């Protein structure tokens, strides 16, 4: 974040004020709906998504009881480095995708059912704005670019001053962290960790959403060894991020409500998810001689779930294949992506060669089926050709693996950003710092663990 | 153990005993005695009526002996031959129901040793007997000639049979005579036998018992006519004359009789004129049945009743004078006595013939009837008794219905049990699908039911007991009254 001149922003402010005066909330909604239908469906209202969670057990239950979030604080960085995202409106009348997206997001927050919605501009410290003011800033461009405030300080401020139960803080920034000198680079992650850890929030969670936008203005690279700034940048898109910071439960619900459908790269730290509903499916793509081992499997209660596989006969030539249905609706999009699930879903077992042979998402056929598979969004197919003499636990684990996009979006040198592409300096290191705070154990907690039992038939 | 000695004299005697046997077989109760000893006195050893009566008696006896004494039901009364009442037979008495005349196969002339008689005696004989009387062979009886019979039968008293009879006569035993008044043997034999048994000077043993024994008799007056044939020795036109003469004799010469039953009817259809021999086999007649009832009636009186004001005279009157009688034409007393029992016997006989051999039912298996009917003599005997064309129950009922007057209480042509009692069909309830009245189903069901409740190891005894119970129930439930 860099200091930038503010005088160029004046026409944008004038236009912004004019626009504010001319638009009502309904108009904004209508405009947003017509202009960006693909990106943001107008039906995306936080209150409406709450019922989705009731399907999930455990955590979802108290989440539902908690009602809407108490408070949402939105922090928008308005330093000079952000000017390229929010250029003062020129004669062309075209805006950046950032403007389009963030304005839309702010509108949604403002419309959300949270009790209190507060909007801040981040300069050297957060300054409170009204929705209209902040929205005007996004649309009209930054009038007075702030001098840079470095990321650890901002994070420290948020965690210390704005952290509250049932409250989330959304920080919108390019997250270009410029260390004081080259020697400080290896300590980026430590700086972040220290900043987040200062307030000792035990259930701190951070969700990071990455976006990219066209950028029209001066680009201030983090590494200033080559150039201090690149004017009239950029030929490439520049990434920007939403960091959602707050207690784990609040972050999870905010993710689910407001960011559910945001097409974005995402990564979550410290967010705890309810174990998704799951069940063995005895009538769906099952192969070989096995059945539900539960005592009451015969009752066929509606919505009952089964987790015990009783195998009557199995061999290398006659393998058993069973499918576990998973309802991942309550998880963020990241964890619903088959591309993520395939490498990260793992089976932990003893005395058996059970292994996952396929993971796939629900399709029209499964959704419209009359069988139990219609309740599930994803399916895991497991093959067994041998098993132990007695019942053995079998665990289906989704590892919390850092998604690949993070390293792809990370660069060690952003001084030649047009060649490097849409990347952010030391993004991995930033997130390493976050992870160090939210991960309590040495080993990263899995997203969920579904216990199964594999036993020979009696 | 009181006995009843029945002297059935002549063809009429045989025929009445036949009817009596039928009644006893049907279960009619004979009061005041445990045992009936029929003695048929007929010099005509080949008489058809007598022979079939004897066959029937033998059959009855075998059946009774197998069944043994019982309180009621079919064949409840013991009928024995004279010789069987005591083990000590002196060797001279044959085990038969028939008095043994010792083969009188000579003419009356030879019997009297006419040729050795003095001239005076010959003259007396010629006065009393016609030439025809003298020349006729005694083997066919006295052919309506009491004057001949009285001579011959007088000798009966000296026979071993009568001595045996007297030897075994006990206090309380009763005697009954059955005879026709218009024939030869009966008209002559009855007063003679009576006189000899009651003779104060008799040389027979137990004379006192004999004299004091309650004695009854039925005398059948003419009830049939014979076809007139020019050369026949018997002329039914002389029946009335003979009856008249006999009655005037009876008026003064029947001593020691306690009850006398008179039966008579006006003849209608003439019988075929057969003076004797196997050809004298007349169809059973209502009169004979009524005569048999006189035996039943006689036994129903207690000793005191009979002795008080003896002798008693009885006549019989029908309820309605008709040529075709059924139960409703009988006086109430008679109807109550025989209607139910005869109906039971008919049901027994009909079911026995129509269904018993082919039934496939638990009672049938229980009694092992498939085997028994084919192999066991006693079952065959029962079959004979019921269905013999000579002397069977079926035949007897048929004859009764075909005679004049006809006694036709049953429709013998139908297979439907419901319609068997003439004029009294069993009511079938229209609204009860399963109540078919007296269907084979009804009998089957009852037989199966009874077969479970009657505990009797002997299958023949059980069979008779079954049918006794079932026909009784059928009558009480379905027929109720006739």
């Amino acid at each position: 974040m860099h200091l930038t001149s503010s005088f160029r922003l004046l026409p944008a402010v004038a236009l912004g004020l004019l626009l504010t005066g001319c638009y009502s909330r309904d108009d904004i909604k209508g405009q947003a709906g017509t202009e960006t239908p693909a990106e943001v469906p107008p039906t995306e209202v936080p209150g409406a998504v709450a019922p989705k969670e009731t399907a999930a057990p455990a955590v979802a239950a108290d989440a539902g009881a908690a009602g809407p979030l108490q408070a949402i604080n939105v922090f928008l960085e308005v330093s000079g480095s952000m000017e390229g995202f929010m250029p003062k409106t020129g004669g062309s009348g075209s805006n950046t995708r950032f403007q389009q997206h963030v304005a839309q997001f702010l509108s949604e927050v403002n419309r959300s059912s949270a009790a209190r919605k507060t909007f801040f501009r981040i300069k050297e410290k957060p300054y409170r704005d009204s929705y209209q003011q902040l929205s005007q800033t996004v649309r009209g461009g930054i009038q007075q670019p702030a001098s840079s405030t470095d990321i650890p300080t901002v994070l420290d401020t948020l965690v210390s001053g704005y952290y509250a139960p049932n409250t989330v803080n959304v920080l919108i920034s390019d997250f270009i962290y410029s260390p004081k000198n080259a020697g400080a680079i290896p300590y980026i992650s430590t700086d972040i960790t220290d900043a987040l850890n200062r307030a000792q929030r035990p259930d701190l969670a951070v969700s990071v959403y990455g976006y990219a936008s066209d950028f029209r203005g001066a680009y201030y690279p983090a590494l200033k060894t080559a150039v201090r700034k690149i004017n009239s940048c950029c030929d490439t898109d520049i990434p920007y991020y939403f960091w959602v910071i707050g207690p784990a439960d609040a972050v999870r619900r905010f993710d689910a409500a407001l960011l559910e459908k945001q097409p974005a790269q995402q990564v979550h730290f410290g967010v705890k998810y309810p174990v998704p509903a799951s069940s063995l499916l005895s009538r769906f793509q099952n192969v070989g001689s096995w059945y539900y081992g539960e005592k009451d499997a015969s009752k066929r209660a509606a919505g009952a779930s089964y987790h015990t596989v009783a195998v009557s006969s199995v061999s290398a030539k006659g393998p058993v294949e069973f499918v576990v249905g998973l309802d991942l609706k309550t998880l963020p999009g990241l964890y619903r992506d088959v591309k993520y699930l395939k490498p990260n879903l793992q089976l932990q077992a003893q005395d058996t060669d059970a292994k996952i042979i396929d993971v796939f998402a629900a399709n029209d056929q499964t959704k419209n089926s009359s069988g139990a598979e219609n309740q599930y969004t994803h399916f895991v197919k497991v093959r067994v050709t041998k098993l132990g003499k007695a019942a053995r636990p079998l665990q289906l684990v989704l590892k919390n693996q850092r998604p690949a996009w993070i390293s792809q979006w990370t660069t060690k040198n952003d001084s030649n950003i047009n060649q490097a592409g849409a990347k952010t300096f030391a993004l991995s290191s930033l997130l390493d710092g976050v992870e160090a705070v939210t991960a309590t154990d040495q080993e990263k907690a899995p997203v969920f663990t579904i216990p199964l039992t594999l036993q020979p038939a009696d | 153990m009181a006995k009843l000695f029945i002297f059935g004299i002549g063809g009429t005697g045989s025929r009445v005993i036949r009817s009596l046997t039928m009644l006893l077989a049907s279960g009619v109760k004979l009061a005041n005695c445990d045992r009936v000893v029929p003695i048929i006195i007929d010099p005509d050893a080949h008489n058809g009526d007598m022979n079939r009566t004897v066959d029937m008696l033998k059959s009855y006896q075998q059946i009774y002996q197998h069944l043994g004494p019982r309180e009621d039901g079919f064949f409840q009364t013991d009928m024995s031959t004279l010789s069987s009442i005591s083990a000590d037979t002196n060797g001279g008495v044959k085990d038969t129901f028939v008095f043994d005349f010792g083969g009188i196969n000579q003419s009356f002339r030879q019997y009297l040793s006419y040729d050795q008689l003095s001239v005076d005696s010959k003259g007396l004989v010629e006065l009393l007997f016609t030439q025809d009387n003298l020349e006729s062979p005694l083997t066919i009886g006295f052919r309506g000639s009491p004057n001949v019979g009285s001579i011959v039968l007088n000798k009966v008293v000296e026979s071993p049979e009568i001595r045996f009879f007297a030897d075994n006569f006990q206090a309380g035993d009763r005697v009954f005579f059955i005879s026709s008044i218009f024939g030869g043997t009966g008209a002559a034999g009855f007063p003679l036998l009576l006189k000899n048994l009651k003779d104060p000077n008799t040389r027979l043993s137990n004379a006192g018992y004999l004299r004091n024994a309650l004695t009854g008799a039925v005398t059948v007056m003419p009830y049939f006519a014979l076809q007139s044939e020019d050369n026949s020795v018997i002329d039914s036109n002389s029946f009335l004359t003979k009856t008249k003469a006999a009655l005037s004799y009876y008026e003064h010469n029947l001593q020691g009789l306690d009850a006398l039953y008179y039966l008579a009817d006006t003849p209608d259809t003439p019988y075929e004129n057969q003076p004797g021999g196997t050809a004298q086999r007349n169809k059973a007649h209502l009169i004979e049945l009524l005569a048999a009832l006189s035996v039943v009636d006689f036994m129903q009186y207690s000793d005191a009743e009979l002795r008080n004001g003896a002798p008693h005279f009885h006549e019989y009157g029908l309820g309605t004078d008709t040529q075709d009688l059924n139960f409703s034409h009988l006086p109430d007393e008679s109807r109550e006595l025989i209607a139910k029992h005869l109906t039971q016997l008919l049901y027994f006989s009909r079911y026995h013939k129509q269904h018993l051999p082919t039934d496939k039912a638990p009672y049938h298996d229980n009694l092992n009837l498939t085997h028994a009917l084919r192999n066991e003599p006693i079952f065959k005997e029962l079959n004979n008794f019921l269905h013999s064309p000579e002397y069977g129950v079926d035949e007897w009922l048929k004859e009764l219905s075909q005679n004049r007057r006809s006694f036709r209480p049953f429709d013998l042509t139908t297979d439907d049990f419901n319609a068997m009692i003439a004029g009294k069909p069993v009511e079938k309830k229209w609204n009860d699908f399963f109540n078919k009245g007296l269907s084979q189903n009804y009998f089957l069901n009852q037989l199966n039911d009874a077969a479970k409740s009657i505990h009797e190891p002997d299958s023949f005894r059980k069979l008779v007991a079954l049918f006794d119970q079932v026909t009784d129930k059928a009558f009480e439930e379905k027929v109720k009254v006739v």
Partner: protein
Amino acid sequence: MKGFFRFLYELIGTPQPPSETPVYREVIFPNVGLLTIGLSLAMVLIFYYLINKAMGVATFNKVRHWVIFLIINALLAFIIGIWQTSSQEVASHSYVYWMSTWNAILGLFWFFLFSVLLKRGSTNASTTPF
């Protein structure tokens, strides 16, 4: 009891498809087994005690009549098998028909067994079938 019926019905092999095993063992076998025993008992009672005793029908006691009941019993037992499996909505498989056929055979057996045990009490069919 479930074990008994499981033994009885698995004499012809384990349920197919295997995924339906619990519902067969826990629900269908006991239900079908009890229903079939009940049916056979009822048919025997009808034949021996209703028709051939209470109703006094004496001409419906032949072996052929008994065989009619026997066959009706078997057909109903087959239908019970089909009915119970379909009411439990098991996956369709030819095993349903094998199981029902086996049940019909068991129905024959039960009917015969009850016949032998109870025929004595009947009036008109106490010697049927033998």
